[in-house]
Every structure is written in structure tokens, then in C-alpha cells.
């Protein structure tokens, strides 16, 4: 099934006899029913106003097409959508609908916010084939309940996105990355926290253990970057020599896309925690490979196939989800962190109301 308009999509959904897997570019590693509802036929940027920092696009529009349009005006998607292709070893074309459905945000999330924070409006088709809109194309909008946030990160289980409208931001004129030598996660999180609590607007704060460096990104106008880099070097001097790291773009792209894990055997987990809990959590993980982002708040872990990471972690504040594993592992452990019963009841209730026939990616989120 590959509709090319929202109306066609709604008709298809209204006539569905059984569950479907919803796919944009199919790059996010979602398994599911054999029947696939492809949304990549709904394609194109319908509105882009650089002076209003707004862009509206059909859900199947390739992220690359949006990036190119924004680039031409010196703007960008500030939440840095992650490209999973290398990590998951596939070759589809990531779509903006997929990014939104998965609420996928990269390193800048720690400063600028997540995909959901930049999402201004959605149109989607619900489980009964009805077209629903929520939010709009303006930045401030509290008209009615915010289903926009609810749709972001719902992985298609509440409805099939047909159109999204996004806030975009200027692309920084200059970027500098600083590295501070650290021996372990504890030291790294101390450095990252010290930088993030400074007034110097750090837009990336990560730690890849094999580099032995806590990494910090500073962006903006060239003079301002130079000034803030200098101030941060002073603030962090107590931690060791603060050096400028070459090739910022490649460094942060690799962190964003978790490329150190690409092609390596094992399962990939993504764990969101309170940053200062990261050292203890990483110790409990006994991972084969680690990558810390968001000042320690996001832990990427490579573990042996089939490992139940949640069992290793025990109780903790946050959530652990599977990004890459064999279908039987996902089946056995669940892709997403199980929710406490009263919260799960609310989520279940919403899914039941939005998709009463359980057509969309059934079982994916519980």
C-alpha cells in the first residue's frame, strides 16, 4: 500500500482488514506485520517561511530534501535528527514523518530541545480512517489539548502522520569542539555538568570512552564562539588540558548517529537517565561499548546479543529501549521500557481510543 495523498491514505485505512506496519523510509528498525503501509508517497515541502522560522512538509518527505531546503537559507532542524542507517545497517531514505513518529533527537537536544519541542502541528489519519489535525504552523499555540506532543514519539501507534509543521532555527556561523581528558564516566559527567551549568551555551556534551575525552560543542557567531571557548577553557582548566578538537562536524555526526557501534556485533540499547546517575548506571550495564551524550543523560550501550539490559539495571529513574536486536529479543524483552501499571493503563487507553481496531504497529509500544 503506497498512497500518494492524505485522502487516499484515509481511504486505505478505513478499508483495512488487518494490522499494518507503517513505514516512511523504513530506517528505524521497526518489525511488525507483513502488510506494510508506506507513507513515502506523501512527499514535498508545502510551506517554508525562513523569516517566520517555519516549515511544513508531507510526512514522507525525505529528511535530506528538508535539510537541503533549509541549508539554502542558512537554517536547520536544530534537534539534529539521528540517521540510524549505519547503525542498523539499512539503506532506506529517512523521512520527516519517521523522525517525528520516533521523536528522534541528536546531541543538540541537551540545549535546544527534542524533536517534540520543535513540532508545531500535525495532520494524521486515525485508526478509523479519519483525518485529524492538531496544533498548526505558529510557534505559540495553546488552543485545545496538545496532541502534537502525543503524536511525537508514538511510533505510529496512535495514527499515521500525513503532514508535520516544524520550527526551524538559524544554522550557526561557527562551531568549535573542545576536548577534556577524562579517565571514566564519572570524570566525564563532572566535566560535562560543569560546562552545561555555565552561561556559555554548550550545544553538545558527550563522552566516548575510547577517545578518553569529554567533548563539548560551542556554536554561534564567530566572535561569540571564540569568547565562549576562552571562558570555558578557564572554567574547565581544573579538569586538565582543554584542547580544541579538529573536525567538529564529523565528530558530532558520529556521536549523533552512534557510528562507533556500526557494524559491531551485539545489541544496541538507548538509556535515558538523570545525568549524574550515568556513572552508576554504566557500571551496572557491563556493556561491551558505551557512548554518553546529553551531558550523560543519554547512554548508548552495545551488549551481547539477547542481554536483558533492564534486568541488569534493576530499578532506576529513566527508561531503556532497544534500538538494534534480533526480532526474538525485541519480542521477548519489549522494545520500550515497561511503564508502571497506572501509566500503562493511560497509554493503553489512548491507543484503544485512537486506534480501536489495533491496526497500527500493534504491540510495538506495549
Amino acid at each position, binding site marked *: 500500500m503506497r498512497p500518494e495523498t492524505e485522502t487516499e491514505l484515509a481511504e486505505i485505512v478505513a478499508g483495512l482488514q488487518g494490522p499494518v506496519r507503517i513505514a516512511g523510509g523504513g530506517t528505524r528498525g521497526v518489525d511488525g506485520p507483513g502488510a506494510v503501509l508506506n507513507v513515502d508517497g506523501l512527499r514535498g515541502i508545502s510551506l517554508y517561511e525562513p523569516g517566520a522560522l517555519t516549515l511544513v512538509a508531507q510526512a514522507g518527505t525525505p529528511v535530506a530534501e528538508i535539510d537541503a531546503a533549509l541549508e539554502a537559507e542558512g537554517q536547520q532542524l536544530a534537534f539534529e535528527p539521528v540517521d540510524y542507517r549505519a547503525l542498523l545497517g539499512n539503506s532506506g531514505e529517512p523521512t520527516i514523518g519517521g523522525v517525528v513518529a520516533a521523536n528522534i533527537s541528536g546531541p543538540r537536544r541537551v540545549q535546544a530541545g527534542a524533536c517534540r519541542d520543535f513540532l508545531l502541528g500535525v495532520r494524521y489519519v486515525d485508526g478509523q480512517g479519519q483525518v*485529524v489535525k492538531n496544533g498548526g504552523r505558529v*510557534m505559540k*499555540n495553546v488552543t485545545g489539548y*496538545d496532541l502534537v*506532543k502525543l503524536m511525537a514519539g508514538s511510533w505510529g501507534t496512535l495514527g499515521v502522520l500525513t503532514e508535520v509543521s516544524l520550527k526551524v532555527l538559524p544554522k550557526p556561523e561557527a562551531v568549535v569542539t573542545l576536548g577534556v581528558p577524562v579517565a571514566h564516566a564519572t570524570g566525564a559527567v563532572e566535566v560535562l555538568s560543569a560546562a552545561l551549568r555555565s552561561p556559555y551555551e554548550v550545544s553538545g556534551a558527550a563522552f566516548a570512552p575510547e577517545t578518553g575525552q569529554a567533548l563539548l560543542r560551542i556554536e554561534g557567531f564567530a566572535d*561569540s564562539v571564540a569568547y565562549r571557548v576562552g571562558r570555558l577553557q578557564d572554567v574547565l582548566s581544573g579538569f586538565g588540558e582543554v584542547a580544541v578538537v579538529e573536525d567538529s562536524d564529523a565528530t558530532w555526526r558520529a556521536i549523533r548517529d552512534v557510528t562507533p557501534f556500526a557494524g559491531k556485533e551485539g545489541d544496541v540499547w538507548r538509556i535515558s537517565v538523570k545525568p549524574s546517575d550515568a556513572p552508576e548506571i554504566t557500571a551496572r550495564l557491563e556493556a561491551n561499548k558505551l557512548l554518553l551524550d546529553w551531558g550523560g543523560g543519554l547512554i548508548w550501550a552495545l551488549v551481547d546479543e539477547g542481554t536483558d539490559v533492564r534486568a541488569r539495571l534493576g530499578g532506576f529513574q529513566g527508561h531503556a529501549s532497544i534500538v538494534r536486536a534480533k526480532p526474538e529479543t525485541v519480542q521477548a524483552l519489549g522494545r520500550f521500557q515497561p511503564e508502571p501499571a497506572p501509566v500503562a493503563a*493511560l497509554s493503553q487507553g489512548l491507543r484503544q481510543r485512537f486506534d480501536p481496531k489495533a491496526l497500527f504497529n500493534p504491540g510495538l509500544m506495549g
Partner: protein
Amino acid sequence: MEMPQPNPDVLARKQAVLTRLLQVLPEDAVIHDPSETRAYECDALTAYRCPPMLAVLPSSTQEVSDVLRICHDEGVPVVPRGSGTSLAGGALPTADCVILGVARMNDVLETDYDNRFIRVQTGRTNLSVTGAVEEEDFFYAPDPSSQLACAIAGNIAMNSGGAHCLKYGVTTNNLLGVTMVMMDGSVVEIGGAHLDSGGLDLLGVICGSEGQLGVVTEATLRILRKPEGARPVLMGFDDNEVAGQCVSDIIKSGILPVAIEFMDTLCIKACENFAHAGYPDCHALLIVEVEGSDAEIDYQLSKIVEIAKRHNPVELRESQSAEESAKIWLGRKSAFGAMGQMNDYMCLDGTIPVSALPQVLRCIGELSEDYGLPVGNVFHAGDGNMHPLILFDANKPGDLEKCEAFGADILKLCVDVGGCLTGEHGVGIEKRDLMSHQYSAADLEAQMAVKDVFDPQWLLNPAKVFPLDVSQARRMAAE
């Protein structure tokens, strides 16, 4: 404004409900005397008043849970209330309701600078959240004009914004977690000090749900380090369209000011007469503020001034001192007071795409002549959030109705040009009946389905957000 008839069964059981509430709350936390419940008859939308049946002031999540469990058992509607500063009637009681005020719950529970959050009870005022972290040079970013008085509970309910949200976002972008009591008294924890949801983003839909999904008693809020400094530039133009173009050019240049405020002729004059801020006599005034170190501010302001000069401003004044900055802001910050001196006013809150600014201002001017009511415009120009202030005389029969009809026309216009009914005040009762202009039946049905899941009996904050006829079947079924 039509409100549903109070449920006579509930009114008849007032004494029984009161007795049960007194079993779980101290005597001074239960208000039942009509002379005292009157204090809760309205919020900041004072044109509408209705004393509640009872009011309670619990001091803990447990007490809130006890109250809600009892009201749920008894089928009594509950209207949650923060500080009662809603401009949309978000906390307007019904005659058969219990007002649940969180004002006594104002403790700071935890501050954590390394992880950059604060956890507070939600009766705490917005400004005192910043007050609690100021000693470490941190602040809580959303800054609604009522921040001295308004409570975090109400900020979360309405997803409140402020003048600085172009850079820092609104409440939903700064809310990390909540403790919420459901209508049946059960307590849920959603989110926390970590980022993003591991499942559906329930936090995202709770924020801005106008107290209709649960009562949020504790909140984890993101706090930020204060910038080193901030400084505004003031510019005057002889044409709204040119001012709008200037805003667009500033944004396109890659600068992201923390605030871009716009005022039109009537507001400029009113503010100048009131505050003597030294505003020029012109059609459109912009205040643009940027942040950073002194050198960073100089650089950004020089770029902004360069852009402004291309649009032939009649006035261009870069602040040279803290006093001058304060003076530039003084006029803008006294806008509502200044307009209030001229007459009664109604403050609207629609948002429009920034590009539609000249067209919308022109239409508002035409409508103003048609209705015979003057209107001044204050405007968060960076994000398109308008605050037209319609002047009327509350003592003149028919003037309020005329003003409301004018206001409705302006808000419909906002929707028609691609914007929305409310940018930061919320729907409440004020814009409830206009919702069908922005949303189709299916759109509203999807929102009401969320309410069905969280509050199946539709007892929480009745008669707000959804047009009464649209929600009627559900409210009737619940009774």
C-alpha cells in the same frame, strides 16, 4: 457565557460531601460558608462569576488524592485552581463544584544544579521558582506577565508562555516531570529528571490540558543558567508593514533575539502618557532584546541596527545603560496598566504567522471602526502572538457583548490567516465556543477522547475548552 445547569443531586448533598471532606482535611482547609466561597467566584476574567459549592485548600499530594477520591465517589465536579490569574476563565467555578486550590502547596522539594532541574509543589508562584535558584545564577525561563502571582500549577494547565519564549520556549518545553492525582484519587508519576518519555508522551498532553486530565501537585522543571547580560534596542517605524518586514529580516539574518515586542500607535501613545518611557510618536514600535556577554550583545545589536536602518526607522535607540534598558522596557511592561487607565479593556491572545502581520493589523483597524471600539495592539512579534486590547465601557449596557463579538471576529481572523485562537492564555470558557472555528468535529473528538481516558466521568474542570454542545453527550452520560 452559557454555563451548564448545576446538578441538583450534587447541590442537595453539599452537607454530606462537606462532612466527608472534613474527615480528610483540617477544618481551616475546607471553605463552605457562602460569604467565604465567594472569594473563589472568578479568576482574572472577572466578567464571569459563580461561587462554588465548596472550596478546599489541601497541603499535600495525599490530601489532594483524598479530596479527589471523595469527589469522584460523590460525583462532584472539581475545578482546580492555582493562583486564579487565568485571563480565559480557566478556573471559573460551577455552582455545584468543589474548588481545589493548591496555594498552600508551595515548597521547593529539590534543587539540583548539576542536573539542571528543580522540583516544586505546584502552588509555588512562577517568579519564586526563579527566586529559589537565583543565588546560583539560575532561572526558570517561562515568564508570563503575571509571574509574580501565577502558580506553576496554572502555568502547566495553560502551557503558559511569556515574552522570552522565542529563545527559551514555553512551559511544555521546560517541564520535565509531574506528580499528578487522577480524578479517582490515584497518583501517577510521569517523567522526571531524565529527558523525553520512554513511551507515549503523556507529559506533553497533560501540559496545556487546562486542569481537565488530573491535578498536578508536584513538578520537575528545567532551570537554566542566567546569561551574562541582556540589552534591548528600540526602533520606531511609520508603517506596520515595514516593521513586520524588519522583524522577518532580523530573524532571517541568523540572530535569535530573546524577545521581539511590537506596539502599535494607540499602545505607544497610551504607554508614553502613562510611563513616560520616551517612546517616539510613530505607527509601530519594536523592542528587540539580545543576550550574552557585552561583546556578544554589541555584535548582535550592531547587526540588528544595520538591518533596521535599511527600513528607514524614525527612531533607533540602542540602550547604553541599565537605566536606559529599564526605561525602554518600562513602557512595554506597563502597557496593560496604561490601557486600563483609558477604559476597561479585553485582552485577546491569538497567534498569527508573522508574515500575516500587516494584513491582520489592517483588518483589525477596519473592524475597530465597524464596532466603534478602539483597539491597541501589543505583540510578541518573533512568534506571532498578538495581544489586541479592545477598549470598552463595562458600565455601558451592551458594550461588553459588543466587545466580545469584536474579539471573536479578531480571533476568527487569526485562525483564517493560518494562526490560532490562543497563544498562551488558554481556551477556558472565553474561547470555548470558538473552538469549532479552528477545529473540525473529528479534531475535537480526538481531543475529547484523551479526556475520556483520563477522566471518564468528565468531572474535572467542567465546561471549559470544548463547546458545550460538542461535549454535551459526554457530560450528560457522566451525570
